[in-house]
């Protein structure tokens, strides 16, 4: 069975990249991202070893997110615009090869696990430089404005991404028939305090420590593009700085790896735009709301169709700390209605 699959993959790969002699040496779970989606492939092509990532389509309905084909198009656009991503090589729309559609990407070196990235300072090179670099990469991504014909599958941009995002999260909560007062409190705060978006650009929508890879020298790729879309670029800065994505290093406000000022500096140099810090801090609260809603979705999915998993069960308990962070950040004095600000 495995041999047949490897043979089909070899044949497809030969056609996709034009190699005369292709042999798959190894196909195994990738160390980056979901093991359900990602496989690492080691191949010998015309006598040269090359390694790739195979990123498969998986049912995404409960979580939303793009198909592998859509994500491949996003990676192509990002790559062409100079953002450091795994280089997109080819897309296979024949489900007979690996059982589902998949994207073939160039393999990337390094580690991406959030806790490891934060703790292991042998990764990423100089951390101050890294924080600036991540700001620059994000700004490069934000140079892309709608419309882009190849990204026509993205939802049309709205004039108020904050309000759209709150409506999206409320509809998920309603669909799950879940009643969480701390979450509702936070969503209402976000509605009342919603910011006006001055620019609409391509946004990653899940840009945080854990979703980029580092080797000993620095950044090797920005990963996990399946929630990217048109939105307020400052939402990505908020996500990166949000406390819930600092993995315990709350003193390092830029993703647990650097100073906020360093990250902002890299972003401002590349974008040539001054960052509205108040708006970024608004989006940090929204990032916590997103993470809470995502945890609820994962929990619901886990209960529906998986064998009991301790990791998933523990993940559902992360809600307490996220909700505490939301409540701390939204004290009555911060509500716009009361103070008319």
């Amino acid at each position, binding site marked *: 069975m495995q041999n047949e699959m490897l043979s089909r993959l070899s044949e497809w790969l030969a056609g996709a990249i034009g190699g005369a002699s292709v042999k798959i040496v190894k196909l195994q779970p990738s160390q980056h991202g979901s093991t359900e989606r990602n496989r690492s492939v080691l191949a010998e092509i015309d006598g040269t070893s090359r390694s790739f990532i195979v990123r498969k389509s998986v049912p995404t309905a409960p979580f939303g997110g793009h198909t592998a084909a859509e994500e491949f198009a996003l990676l192509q656009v990002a790559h062409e615009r100079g953002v450091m991503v795994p280089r997109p090589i080819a897309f296979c729309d024949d489900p007979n090869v690996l059982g589902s559609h998949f994207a073939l990407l160039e393999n990337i070196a390094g580690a991406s696990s959030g806790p490891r990235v934060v703790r292991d300072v042998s990764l990423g090179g100089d951390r101050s430089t890294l924080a600036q670099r991540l700001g620059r990469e994000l700004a490069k991504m934000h140079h892309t404005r709608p419309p882009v014909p190849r990204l026509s599958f993205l939802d049309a941009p709205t004039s108020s991404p904050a309000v759209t995002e709150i409506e999206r999260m*409320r509809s998920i909560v309603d669909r799950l028939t879940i*009643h*969480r*007062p*701390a979450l*509702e*409190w936070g*969503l*209402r705060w976000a509605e*009342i305090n919603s910011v006006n978006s001055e620019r609409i650009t391509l946004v990653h929508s899940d840009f945080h420590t854990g979703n980029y890879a580092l080797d000993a020298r620095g950044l090797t790729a920005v990963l996990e593009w399946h929630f990217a879309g048109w939105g307020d670029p400052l939402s990505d800065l908020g996500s990166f700085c949000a406390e819930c994505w600092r993995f*315990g290093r709350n003193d390092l406000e830029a993703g647990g790896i650097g100073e906020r000022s360093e990250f902002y500096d890299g972003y401002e140099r590349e974008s040539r735009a001054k960052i509205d810090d108040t708006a970024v801090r608004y989006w940090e609260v929204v990032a916590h709301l997103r993470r809470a809603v995502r945890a609820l979705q994962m929990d619901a999915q886990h209960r529906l169709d998986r064998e009991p998993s*301790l*990791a998933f*069960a*523990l993940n559902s*308990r*992360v809600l*307490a*700390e996220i*909700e*505490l962070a*939301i*409540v*701390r950040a*939204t*004290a*009555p*004095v911060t*509500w716009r*209605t*009361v103070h008319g600000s």
Partner: protein
Amino acid sequence: MDPEISGVELLDIAQQALSNDIVQLLEGDPHYMALLIGRAMRMVAREYAQQERSQAARGALLALADGTDDDDRMRALCRDLRDGRHDADPQLHTALWADTAIRTSITRPSLLARTERRLAGLSEDHQSDDAG
């Protein structure tokens, strides 16, 4: 003195045996799984210890809504929040803070600030044990 040890004490001893005697013998996925099991055991012990405080905090929160039972009050509270009937309500904010802080004292006490530790009945120098 009751010669039988309590369930919480038993859980604590089992967790210590796992952490001190078993985890170090394992590598790779089994090592990671053993760490997760230890974390789950510590969480259960803390949940048991915080039962009264946890119920009191949840009761104070639900007292701010009308309803025939707790589920009904929870639904009503969430609806009222969304409809703007509790905007910037300091009493509700305090109740939410207490409820989430006590729940966090069960799942990850190291995240609590000093005032929250006091609220959760933890000593200020409490060494939380939620790694792994």
